[in-house]
Structure formats: structure tokens, C-alpha cells
């Protein structure tokens, strides 16, 4: 094995072990920042020793033991410092032994639970969504601050500072670092799922293929979703979110044209959809439903994505089912965007009149007075109803409201097509 090979091996081992190692260390030293430093120290020790000694048979155990030794050294040093002016020379061993026993006990606990505890900690609701995302990518995903900064098109200093602040906030809060139970668990879990989905969407929203770091965020979010599903196999919304991400990611290769422009769902080449991810998404959805979570916001969004995934051709889309799912979604996740999509689904399922009736309700909402997509939808429904002159006016109105150059051009194009 060459030096580079060994180096690559050590990096791969570290990637596998890192999050679990940090999780164990957090339990032990009760400090996220210190745990991360100890893990990093152990990695550096491995980098300097393994090329000489060879990779140990159980590298995970080796890293854990090394980090643990270092933690115990620190504990002893702190005690010594604290007692510098007290009775120097007093036998400290008894108290030390108690501290070390606690460390040993903490290190031997169930690893899965610890990793889940670390995810819950990194996504704690006392942190802002931005901070949760950065800390999760750093601690669980193992991304460097530079990688996170590039993915979020911001500076490394900004991300580094965000992570430092987040660690401080967690430190001050005096958390237990345990997996929350009971009612608190659900609240904390939605905070975790929100952070994971934010990471996914940041990658998914990126339309340019030039920046490969951003699609990598989708992969990272999917991995986090899969880890969560492995660690919390009884939580329906974990599977709802996982299903939603797998199905959406199945379209990644099909949703950008050769010119770099996004291709709408109805016009994508469905043969380019990733069948393995669709299968995984559908089975995760089944699992969410089997756990009684069919009405969860993520499960419902996944069920909507699944309707499109099941249709090999646009014409095969089950719009009635989609309309029904939007009816259910607006009850658990009310928003104008959901209502607008619901109107579109009803138009496709039951005809333009059904869609127009739902739009009228939305148009009474003052907050949406300047929302370009409303007249755009009305124009589309009118066109389907055969009223092309009225449709033209609506597309023009939508174009006037739009603040996006590409969108405006698209809407004016539709208006023009009406006059024929």
C-alpha cells in the first residue's frame, strides 16, 4: 500500500467513524466543540501513526480509545489546575476513578442512540434554521466549513462563525444531549426534519449544473434522511420526508435541459428518472403509511410526488388522487402555494370550472393581490375552457406583476399564443 493509499484509507475510515465518535464524545465531555476537537485529534494521531504501524484491525475502537485517553488526560489536567492552590499532593486517584468510570460507562452505551442524540442536538430548536443546517452538515455530514460555504455560496468565515456561535449557544443551554422522549420528541423531531429538508431544497433549487457542490447537498440530505430512518424506524414523518427526498431526487437528471434551463415536471423525459430512487421512495412512503402517518405533511407531499413518479407518461397522471391529496395537505399545512396547486389539480381532475371556482376563493385574499402566479393560473384555466381572449388578458396581467425576467418572457409568450 502506498502512502497515498493509506491516507485515503484513513480518510474513508474517518468518514465512516466520525459522527459516531463525536456522538460518543459529546455524551462523555458534555461539550459539542470539545468533542469535535477530540475526534479531530484522534484522526490526526491516526494519520501520523497508521502509515507506520498499519491500520488496526478495528479502527473504530482504536479511534475511540485514543480520543477517550485524551479526554481523560484533559479531565485530570483540569482537576489539577483547579486544585493548584489547594492541598497539593492529596491523592486524587479516587475521584479520578469515579470520573473515568463515568466516561467508560458513557462510551459503552448504544451507539445508535448516541448518534440520534447528536442529530437532535445539532438541530435543537434554540438554534436558528441556518445554524442547525450548518452544524448538522459539519457534525453529521462531516463537511468542512469551506465545503459548506461553497455549497451555500457564502464565505468560509461566515459559516465558521455561524458554527462557533451555534456551539456556544448549545454550551450555554446546559442540554442533556439525550434523545428526547414523549411530547418533546415530536416537537424536536420536526426541527430535525425541517433542517434536513432545508439542506435538500438548497441543493434542489440550484438550477446550474456548473456548481457540483450544490447537488451534493441533495445527496447529503438523502443520506441524513436514510440515517434517521435507520435510527428512528418508528417515526412515520421520518419516512415521509425520506420518501419525498428520494422521489424528488429521482428527477435530478431530468429536470435541467442542455441549455441549463429548468424543465417543468410535465415536460421532463421520464425515462431519465432514477428507478432505484423511485422504488426506495415508494417503499418509504408505504412504511410511513403503515406506521399510521399517511396524513403527515411530509407523507402527503411524498404521496403527491409518488403520483407523478408512478405515471410513466404525463397523460397517465392520476389527477383525481392528486386533487384529493391537496385537499388533505391544506388541512395540515395551510398555505397559498398549496391552495394554488390544489386549484391546478382540481382543474386537471374535474375541468377548468372547478379550478376557477377555487381560484376565486384565493383571489379574495388581499395578500395575494400582486402574486403573478394567480392570474397565470387563471389564464391557463380559461384557455382550457376555450376562452382565449380572456386568457390573453390574464397572462398579460401576470406578466406585468412578475418580477422575474424569464418568467415574464414566458408569460408574454403565452399571451401572444392566445391571440391566434
Amino acid at each position: 500500500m502506498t502512502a497515498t493509499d493509506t491516507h485515503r484509507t484513513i480518510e474513508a475510515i474517518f468518514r465512516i467513524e466520525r459522527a459516531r465518535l463525536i456522538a460518543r464524545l459529546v455524551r462523555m465531555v458534555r461539550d459539542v466543540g470539545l468533542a469535535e476537537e477530540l475526534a479531530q485529534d484522534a484522526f490526526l494521531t491516526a494519520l501520523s501513526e497508521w502509515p507506520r504501524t498499519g491500520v488496526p484491525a478495528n479502527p473504530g475502537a482504536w479511534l475511540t480509545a485514543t480520543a477517550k485517553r485524551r479526554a481523560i488526560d484533559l479531565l485530570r489536567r483540569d482537576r489539577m489546575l483547579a486544585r493548584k492552590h489547594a492541598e497539593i499532593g492529596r491523592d486524587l486517584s479516587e475521584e479520578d476513578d469515579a470520573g473515568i468510570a463515568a466516561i467508560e460507562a458513557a462510551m459503552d452505551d448504544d451507539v445508535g442512540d448516541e448518534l440520534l442524540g447528536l442529530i437532535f442536538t445539532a438541530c435543537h430548536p434554540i438554534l436558528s434554521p441556518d445554524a442547525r443546517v450548518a452544524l448538522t452538515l459539519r457534525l453529521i455530514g462531516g463537511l468542512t466549513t469551506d465545503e459548506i460555504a461553497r455549497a451555500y455560496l457564502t464565505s468560509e468565515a461566515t459559516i465558521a462563525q455561524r458554527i462557533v456561535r451555534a456551539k456556544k449557544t448549545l454550551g450555554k443551554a446546559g442540554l442533556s444531549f439525550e434523545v428526547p422522549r414523549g411530547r418533546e420528541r415530536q416537537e424536536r423531531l420536526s426541527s430535525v426534519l425541517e433542517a434536513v429538508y432545508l439542506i435538500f431544497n438548497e441543493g434542489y433549487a440550484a438550477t446550474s449544473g456548473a456548481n457540483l457542490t450544490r447537488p451534493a447537498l441533495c445527496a447529503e440530505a438523502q443520506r441524513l434522511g436514510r440515517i434517521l430512518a435507520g435510527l428512528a424506524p418508528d417515526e412515520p414523518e421520518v419516512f415521509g420526508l425520506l420518501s419525498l427526498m428520494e422521489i424528488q431526487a429521482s428527477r435530478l437528471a431530468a429536470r435541467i435541459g442542455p441549455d441549463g434551463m429548468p424543465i417543468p415536471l410535465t415536460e421532463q423525459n421520464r425515462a431519465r428518472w432514477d428507478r432505484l430512487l423511485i422504488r426506495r421512495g415508494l417503499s418509504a412512503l408505504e412504511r410511513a403509511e403503515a406506521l399510521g402517518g399517511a396524513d403527515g405533511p411530509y407523507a402527503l407531499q411524498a404521496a403527491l410526488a409518488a403520483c407523478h413518479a408512478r405515471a410513466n407518461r404525463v397523460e397517465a397522471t392520476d389527477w383525481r388522487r392528486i386533487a384529493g391529496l391537496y385537499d388533505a395537505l391544506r388541512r395540515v399545512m395551510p398555505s397559498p402555494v398549496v391552495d394554488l396547486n390544489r386549484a391546478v389539480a382540481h382543474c386537471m381532475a374535474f375541468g377548468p370550472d372547478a379550478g376557477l371556482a377555487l381560484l376565486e376563493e384565493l383571489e379574495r385574499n388581499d395578500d395575494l393581490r400582486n402574486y403573478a402566479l394567480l392570474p397565470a393560473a387563471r389564464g391557463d384555466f380559461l384557455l382550457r375552457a376555450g376562452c382565449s381572449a380572456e386568457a390573453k388578458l390574464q397572462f398579460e396581467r401576470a406578466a406585468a406583476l412578475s418580477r422575474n425576467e424569464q418568467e415574464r418572457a414566458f408569460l408574454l409568450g403565452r399571451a401572444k399564443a392566445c391571440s391566434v
Partner: protein
Amino acid sequence: MRVMVFVKATEDSEAGVMPTTELFEAMGRFNEELIKAGVLLSGDGLKPSSQGKRVAFDGPSRTVIDGPFAETRELVAGYWVWEVKDIAEAVEWVKRCPNPMFGPSEIEIRPFYEMADFGDVVTPEIAEQFDRLREKTPAR
């Protein structure tokens, strides 16, 4: 990157010898680890080649050959599909796998091709035809 990980056959697996309870359990624990690490996408075991068939191609001729097939060590007894960062990570995971067979055995890691890898070999027309065929394949 996506890799397929092949468990290669042995005389035992070809003879249909079932693994011991201990091996089943150890393999279960390994799979559990893969799941908890978010690495495992799918996987399954395959029956011995005595239950398989081969079709040999030579120009226009097609000859069906019944199993079992002779070159045991080249046969596949099972597979996983994993999502890993690079092949070094896949190697590390394979090292952690319990020996899937009673005697000496091998596991092989092969990265998936992605469309980008084909370069000029696949013309847009061929890609289009390939896409049309896949369109007819149901999701499940």
C-alpha cells in the same frame, strides 16, 4: 457514487448450503450498520447457478445453456447497491463485512456507469432510444 458490491460464489453457495444462524445474525448486524450509516440502497441473495440459465451469443445464433456453471469463483451469490462518497469508503465497508462464506471467499466492488461516462459512444439518438425503452419499464 453508486457501487454494486458482489458476493462471489463458493462451492458451498453453489451447492445451496445455507449459512449458519450465527452468520445470518452477523450479516444482519452488518446490514443494520449499513442502514444506520445511510449507505445501503438495496441488495439480495441469489440462488445457486444450477437454477440459472445462460444464453450464448455468436452472430445471429442464440444458444441456451443450463446451469450449473463451472467457473464457481466467477459466479455471483448475492449483491448490494451502496451509495458512498468514493470507492475507498466502499472498501472500508466491505472490510467490516463478516466473511459471507464458510471458507475463503471474495467480495467485488464495481462502480456504476453514469451517462456522462459514455462520452461520444452514445449518440443523442441512441440515448433517446434507450430512454424510450426505459419509459416502458414500470417503476415497480
